[in-house]
């Protein structure tokens, strides 16, 4: 239909590349918002609880503001998530056709959680004025549970792509039997799901804290800002050490079950014992260039002994090796590096708190917090790159290649271009709206109080007759 031949990139061979890039871009966008959807409720309710329990006006005000901001991020999360659901069919129709009956089960459950989350979110956000204090608080609690449940179901679907099980194929490769329980509780869920949920708490916690850290660096050091920094930061800092532990477990599981992925992100060329752990560097056919090597450490991390044998890429058939090892390797290192840095930040806060019941008194601490939110997001993206690119060339590990799953529809590059424009607008819009909200709050503070009276009368329609 369209004169596609005029555009070399739009020819169908590059459909696969376009579809992957489009999928990756929209997922990376959505995942940040979904982290907020998973973890903000708990952060908001912590502030709300402090406000109710101790009659703390500032905490209450923070909870109210954060929930208003969440109304915006949740809406953007909902629309970008809907786009993802469409994309499964639009970009990977052969995947859904062949494995929808297994892969889909988790998503059917996800729908349940999102529904409940959307409902209670609405009650909580719009219930500030006219629901009683504790009743209103409890109306928010289901969101915490549904956020975790929703994350479980989506991520377990992804885990199933990494370690598929719970289905029987006939000679033609069609799914003829399924075992939903086996699908849902595939081996990879046990590390991917907790790792993701903890990541969500880190992203949301550090991100909110970093906003207040910036405010404090600009001289707004009132109690509101301190609390706004401390509540989310405490939550994120508690979660961080657990996250590193889970990530370490994940790495060992991947080494056992997806050796190609592991060899890919660790740049292991040859199978053997006494493998060196490389930090940074570029992966080439004859070894890693420009990395810091720690002898034996890789073998030790996989099996707690330098004698552990670790599979290298030489044992993986050439057409089953993941592409772009350097990307994988650097992504993995970035995730681990950022995780370690955030752990150091958590230790710093814990130490200062233990000694003086206060945050560290240097602007460097605030500066570190100010970048921690972005850091957590980068770690999150890097982790997903490791998982997804590391699984290539498979869409369902061992069963279906990504190249067999992709659509034959024309013009995916055009769609990608369109989506870039659309999402650029969406992202800019969301940021502008959030900034204008915060500006308005600041102005209200400077004039007379909050301007939002709980339990006030309902606003009239404009111009309505009395």
């Amino acid at each position, binding site marked *: 239909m369209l004169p596609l031949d005029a555009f070399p990139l739009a020819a169908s061979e590059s459909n696969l590349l376009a579809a992957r890039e489009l999928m990756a871009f929209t997922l990376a966008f959505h995942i940040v918002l979904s982290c907020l959807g998973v973890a903000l409720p708990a952060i908001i309710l912590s502030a709300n609880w402090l406000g109710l329990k101790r009659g703390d006006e500032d905490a209450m005000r923070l909870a109210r503001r954060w929930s208003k901001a969440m*109304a*915006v991020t949740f*809406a*953007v999360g*909902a*629309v970008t998530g*809907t*786009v993802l*659901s*469409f994309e499964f*069919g*639009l970009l990977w*129709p*052969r995947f*859904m*056709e*062949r494995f*929808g*009956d*297994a892969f*889909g*089960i988790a*998503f*059917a*459950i996800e*729908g*349940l959680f*999102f*529904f*409940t989350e*959307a*409902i*209670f*979110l*609405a*009650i909580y956000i*719009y*219930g500030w004025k*006219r*629901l009683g204090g504790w009743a209103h608080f409890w109306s928010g609690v289901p969101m915490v549970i549904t956020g975790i449940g929703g994350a479980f179901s989506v991520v377990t679907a992804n885990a199933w792509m990494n370690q598929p099980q719970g289905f029987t194929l006939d000679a033609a490769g069609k*799914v003829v*039997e*399924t075992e*939903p329980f086996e699908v849902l509780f595939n081996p990879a869920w046990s590390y991917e799901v907790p790792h993701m949920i903890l990541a969500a708490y880190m992203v949301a916690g550090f991100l909110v804290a970093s906003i207040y850290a910036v405010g404090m660096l600009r001289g707004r050091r009132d109690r509101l800002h301190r609390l706004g920094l401390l509540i989310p930061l405490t939550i994120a800092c508690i979660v961080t050490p657990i996250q590193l532990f889970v990530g370490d477990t994940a790495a060992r599981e991947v080494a056992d079950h997806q050796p190609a992925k592991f060899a890919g992100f660790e740049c292991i060329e040859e199978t053997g014992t006494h493998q060196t752990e490389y930090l940074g560097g570029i992966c080439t056919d004859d070894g890693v260039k420009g990395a810091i090597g720690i002898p034996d450490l890789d073998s030790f991390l996989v099996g707690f002994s330098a004698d552990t044998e670790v599979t290298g890429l030489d044992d993986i058939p050439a057409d089953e090796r993941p592409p772009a090892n350097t990307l994988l390797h650097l992504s993995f290192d970035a995730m681990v590096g950022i995780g370690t840095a955030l752990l150091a930040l958590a230790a710093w806060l814990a130490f200062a708190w233990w000694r003086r019941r206060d945050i560290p008194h240097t602007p460097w601490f605030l500066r570190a917090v100010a970048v921690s939110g972005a850091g957590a997001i980068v770690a999150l993206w890097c982790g997903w790159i490791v998982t997804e690119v590391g699984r290539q060339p498979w869409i369902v590990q061992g069963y279906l290649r990504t190249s067999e799953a992709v*659509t*034959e*529809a024309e013009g995916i590059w055009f769609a990608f271009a369109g989506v870039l424009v*659309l999402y650029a607008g*969406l992202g800019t*819009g*969301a940021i*502008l*709206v959030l900034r*204008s*909200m915060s500006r308005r709050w600041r102005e209200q503070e400077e004039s007379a109080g909050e301007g939002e009276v709980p339990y006030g009368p*309902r606003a009239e*329609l*404009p*111009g*309505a007759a009395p």
Partner: protein
Amino acid sequence: MTRADVAAAILWTGATLYALFGGADFGAGLWDLIAGDARKGERPRALIQRSLTPVWEANHVWLIFILVVLWTAFPEAFGAVMSTLYVPIALAAVGIVLRGAGFAFRKSIESLEGQRAMGAAFALSSVLTPFFMGTVVGAIAAGNVPASGDGDAFSSWLAPLPLLTGALFVASGAYLAAVYLVSDARRAASPDLEDYFARRALAAALVAGGFAVAGIFALHSDARYVFDRLTAEGLPLVIVSALCGLGVLGLLLRGARRGLRPLAAGAVVAVIWGWGVAQFPYLLPTTLKITQSAAPDPTLDAVLIVFVVAALVVLPALGLLYWLSQRELLEE
């Protein structure tokens, strides 16, 4: 009834609820679009905003529900539809993004131009999205989606029946929305808005009725299988729908308000189930039967269980949300 039929019934239930709630949301967007300049349109727009704000996100989840049930329970049909009708489906998705964003951002943006742009995105996509969804349904009914997928990307939906169905979707959403807004205006004690939306409900009812009648002619020429069953097995539902529609007209002309909402909803529900009965036993008439496309039994059982749990958990919660919202306990 086989398991597959039950799963299909679940799918249709989801579609019904999406039409009743999501459809009305889209319709409200249409009224927003044509409410006139800032001064004239201010009060109707404020009522629309106030009625939609707490519920639009929950209403929207029915769409996710439909997609998920379709790809889990009927993966082949999902693949076939997606690989054929990707143009209108992608356009509907764009509409969903613009609509959600426009709605969420509009009230928080300060500059008038910004608000206008967001309002326009919201309102315009409120029309385009149901239209393209309607073309998808029409193309399926017309048998333009081959069971193996990869049907023609354009001629499959650029045809009279799909286009008419798209128009019908827009009009029925507007009709439902106007009827709901009459009640909302009443609760807000705004008799002028009550009349305002009652007039619009009447107009939308006539337009939707017109599209429905034209649709029946299009079915006759383009979708013979569906037409034949609609005028035989499906006839009672067609009659119910027509009676409900006439009932709404009667009530509106007499200025009555009581019973408007159930009758208007009844008209829409009867059409959707009439369509289901008319397609039976096909999911894609006349190439893919419900049973042929169905997932293995344990997957269908899982879908059924999820549905039952949803009925036990989500429906009461949703009831609570609507109840709070109708009692005016939810407010920005």
